[in-house]
């Protein structure tokens, strides 16, 4: 009888310990996810501030209103529209304002949108040919944007 009571108490204590450990683990995982999310948010905000510092007033106004801005290629004078995003986010615009194609090139590394767009702007405005030489071009029709 005594043995059964001791066994029951031990089982109860073990179950209690297990519950406490699981709760602690869940809390740690949740906090880690929250930190990571917060870190990403801060990173993106810092990169967007840097981008806006380097945009012309016209480009900044366009970006703030439409989430895109236009740049002029340094060699051909072609107009490109850089949309907010990190991939296939550059649109070539014809002289009549029509969509021609999309270009995709990015700075190496896992950079956030603000940094990517700034590197794309500088590259197209200072070394258009060099940028397009590494870029991928696509002629997918411009349907709903998913940048």
């Amino acid at each position, binding site marked *: 009888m005594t043995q059964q009571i001791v066994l029951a108490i031990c089982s109860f204590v073990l179950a209690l310990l297990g519950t406490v450990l699981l709760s602690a683990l869940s809390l740690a995982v949740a906090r880690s996810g929250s930190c990571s999310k917060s870190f990403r948010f801060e990173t993106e905000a810092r990169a967007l501030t840097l981008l806006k510092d380097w945009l012309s007033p016209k480009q900044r106004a366009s970006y703030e209103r439409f989430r895109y801005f236009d740049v002029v290629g340094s060699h051909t004078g072609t107009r490109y529209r850089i949309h907010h995003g990190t991939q296939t986010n550059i649109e070539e615009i014809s002289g009549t304002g029509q969509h021609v194609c999309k270009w995709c090139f990015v*700075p190496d590394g896992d950079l956030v949108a603000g940094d990517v767009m700034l590197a794309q702007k500088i590259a197209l405005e200072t070394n258009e040919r060099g940028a397009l030489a590494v870029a991928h071009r696509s002629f997918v029709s411009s349907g709903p944007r998913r940048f």
Partner: protein
Amino acid sequence: MATQIVMDRTGDTRHTFDVHDRAEVEKAERRFMELTGAGFTAAVRTGPGEQRVIRSFDPTAEETLFYPRLVGG
């Protein structure tokens, strides 16, 4: 004071140096050489929304931005 801004996974890392301090300028020049040697492009602002790419260290540049080598996306 001048600043070198290096794009990275944290957004950017900033290195500030005193342009009148020879040791700091030398350190900044070494950083410039290391980064450009590793494929980074260095650019300085020349006006609102305007910039130029530089191939050699410019100690008089108030702000130099470095971005990594471009690759097709």
